[in-house]
């Protein structure tokens, strides 16, 4: 028997941590067991990126994954989602690319998309990865939080209703 206690006592303990740093900012952290150059490679080679960016639980599948990873270069991800009649596209451009240490890109599929900064910090063969997203407003983060279709239904419904009501005002 393993002496360690099972994780059920701390169900939310996980290697991924999320912090809402401010009304417009959210930070995700995770340490990977590998050097920064390999983690960076997995973020910058489309054929690798498409293997992990959309976890199976999201119910989406990649149609296209193009990424010209250099400052000013563009990316475009297209997915099929069972609830969307046509493919869903996410696109933008890379603002900064520093090999093995830093990536910054825009999210331009909506008017209130975030600017995403990812840093890779290697320590003793492990890499601390920090994803920092800055949205133009609190509302944009509330609405976009959780990424592709992942926003809690209550919030999306609430938002839709608010839009309805405002248009009637």
């Amino acid at each position, binding site marked *: 028997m393993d002496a360690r206690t099972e994780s059920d006592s701390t169900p*939310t303990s*996980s*290697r*991924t*941590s*999320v912090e*809402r740093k401010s009304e417009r900012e*959210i930070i*995700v952290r*995770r340490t*990977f*067991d*590998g050097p920064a150059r*390999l*983690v960076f*490679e*997995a973020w910058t080679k489309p054929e*690798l990126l498409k*293997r*992990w*960016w*959309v*976890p*199976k*639980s*999201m119910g989406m599948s990649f149609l296209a994954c193009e990424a010209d990873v250099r400052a000013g270069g563009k990316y475009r991800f297209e997915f099929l989602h069972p609830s969307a009649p046509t493919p869903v596209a996410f696109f933008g451009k890379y603002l900064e690319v520093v090999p093995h240490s830093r990536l910054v890109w825009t999210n331009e599929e909506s008017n209130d998309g975030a600017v995403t900064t990812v840093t890779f910090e290697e320590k003793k063969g492990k890499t601390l*990865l920090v*994803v920092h997203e800055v949205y133009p407003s609190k509302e944009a983060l*509330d609405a976009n*939080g*959780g*990424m592709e279709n*992942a*926003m*809690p239904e*209550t*919030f999306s*419904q*609430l938002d839709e*209703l*608010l839009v309805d*009501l405002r248009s009637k005002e």
Partner: protein
Amino acid sequence: MLKLNHMVQYASAGFDASFAAISDATRRGVLEQLGRADASISDLAEKFHMTLTGMKKHVAVLEQAGLVATEKIGRVRTCRLGSRRLEEEAAWIERYREIWDARFDELDRVVEELKRQEKTDGRKNRK
């Protein structure tokens, strides 16, 4: 009020009540204000240029929806954000975390594989 009570009987009532509560600009303002700091009803009335009675009504709607909790200490009724609001925020963060967690579990596998490949390639190169 009758309409609100009626809605509360339905399963989605909590949501409807929240929605009714925040469909009013003043009440949204009150929530925003309470997000910054707790306040008494008279503070709120003053801030929103409203009578005490008017503000009491707004706070009652927010309270019924679970968005605001009030507590009377002495002669002052203090308002703060209700637990439901906080729970929703915690749930929002948790949902966000789950997405990235699932994504990073897959990334773990990719990184593992790259490490293995590098090792194998390294061995080959030495030969």
